[in-house]
């Protein structure tokens, strides 16, 4: 008998393969659904005004919150941005402007390497460089650790976005007699700015969820503090402390903290998506 069509065995195999790939997607989305379900359902129960307004209270006293940790996370991420935005953006400009040079590939390699360094190792580095000389844990050390994690993300995002700017813009500026610096900072960077800002926001969201680099740099603080030279609380470290404690009320607050963290991530990535879509429309894509 002559087989005129594709033999069934091959078709079956192909269908099985397509099914397996679909199954893989479902397999990965199940944990996502479960994590989101528990964080939202457990977190919503415990999230109230006290959580945002009060500082932690001793075990057994109700009404404690994470006001100090929320402020701490804001200060830490602010410090991180102050360190990482200039280094990251200027490095990104260098990478795109001198993309062919040997030094640029060294910098690109360093950025990718730094991106792969485990966050706990960055924490050890910050401990050695900031905590040891100062003699104690401090907000500065935590901000330094987070900043270092942010640098490669911003640098690579900036580079990628600058490469998308049409070359005609650069040529136009140079043809008008602008220096390279003028062309970059008055024409090319502004053209890519919305995207760069989006990248910085995404990097901030990622950094705000980091725990490991803060454990022995900014440490933790049961009290409200805004001092840069003292230990400071952060949402993530506070969630960790509460999660491994034996107290029911603290577990409750840990879930509330997790919900705040996930909300930050969700809002930032949605905002980034909307911003990116808008930029795409303006560019006429």
């Amino acid at each position: 008998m002559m087989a005129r069509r594709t033999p069934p065995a091959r078709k079956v195999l192909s269908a099985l393969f397509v099914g397996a790939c679909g199954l893989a997607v479902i397999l990965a989305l199940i944990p996502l659904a479960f994590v989101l379900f528990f964080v939202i359902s457990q977190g919503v129960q415990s999230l109230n005004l006290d959580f945002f307004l009060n500082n932690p209270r001793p075990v057994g006293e109700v009404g404690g919150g994470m006001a100090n940790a929320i402020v701490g996370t804001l200060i830490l991420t602010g410090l991180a941005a102050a360190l990482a935005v200039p280094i990251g953006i200027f490095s990104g400009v260098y990478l795109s402007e001198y993309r062919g040079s040997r030094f640029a590939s060294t910098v690109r390699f360093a950025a990718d390497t730094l991106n792969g360094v485990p966050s706990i190792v960055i924490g050890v580095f910050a401990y050695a460089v900031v905590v040891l000389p100062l003699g104690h844990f401090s907000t500065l050390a935590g901000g330094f650790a987070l900043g270092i994690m942010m640098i490669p993300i911003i640098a690579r995002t900036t580079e990628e976005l600058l490469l998308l700017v049409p070359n005609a813009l650069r040529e136009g500026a140079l043809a008008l007699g602008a220096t390279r610096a003028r062309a970059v900072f008055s024409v090319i960077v502004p053209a890519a700015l919305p995207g760069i800002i989006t990248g910085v926001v995404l990097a901030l969201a990622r950094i705000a969820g980091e725990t490991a680099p803060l454990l022995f740099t900014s440490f933790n603080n049961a009290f409200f503090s805004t001092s840069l030279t003292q230990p400071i609380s952060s949402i993530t470290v506070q969630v960790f402390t509460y999660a491994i404690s034996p107290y029911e009320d603290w577990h409750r607050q840990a879930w509330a903290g997790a919900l705040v963290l996930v909300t930050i991530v969700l809002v930032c990535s949605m905002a980034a998506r909307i911003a990116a879509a808008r930029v795409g429309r303006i560019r006429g894509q």
Partner: protein
Amino acid sequence: VRSPDLGFRLGIGVFAAALVAIVAGIGAVLANDSWLSLQRFGLNFWRTSNWDPVAGEFGALPFIWGTLYSSVLALLLATPVALGIAVFISELCPQWLRAPLIFLTELLAAIPSIVYGLWGVFVLVPVVRAVELTMPESLRALPLFSGPPFGVGMLAAALILAIMVVPFTSAVAREVLKTVPMTQREAAYALGATRFEAIRAAIFFARTGIIGAVMLGFGRALGETMAVTMVIGNNPQVALSLFAPQYTMAAVIANEFTEAANALYLSALIEIGLVLFIITLLVNILSRGLIWSMARQVPVKAAA
């Protein structure tokens, strides 16, 4: 180079140089601060398993074992799923479903490690424990499933690591598959290939890059700290059993760093950090090299 441009180049070059200096600085500082431990124990540090800070004995074998074992297990679990997702999104799924699926997998990657840890402690570990309890006696005799069912342990750690690595590997694998020229698939279809056979051809074409993507995920798993610390049980032992509470390099640093009361203890922990840094560095360099060499062999991309 005109002189005003030189000033500009040097000006921003300083910032770029700072980035390079940081990476070099991490290596130098970690090596310097672990000198005490490096000198005292030498290679024995990584060959012995007795971790007794009070007695001043530091053997880090259980940590490197736990790190490698958990990461390899996570890789075994995550790779098929991650590649399935990458293939589904880039080759199979309808256009309208693509963006939402990419968003969801990115969300999976964006959830902070501490949130996975919290979920692991209160949701995953009890489930793992229940599974361990229902394991039939005949299987419990195997070394892979021996020991009491605690819930916390290698299995829980490997599962949570796998969940965290999947979106990462699949994103890189998707990028790699994107670089495979369309002509490869068209040629396969023209020869009468089924969907599977055409995709197999594309995967074969991209094999170097896909291995790179898997290794990049491995690098992530090696350094993952919080979620693993919270579910692995934190018991320094070299055990094959999936049920056994074990320990990883990142976890011991996270747990004991603030407790390191003397210089030798601190130095020993920093040495663990140094070795973790070197291992992840090598894995990253190797995987990026693979992905890069794959991207380079695609002539179409350079023209596009």
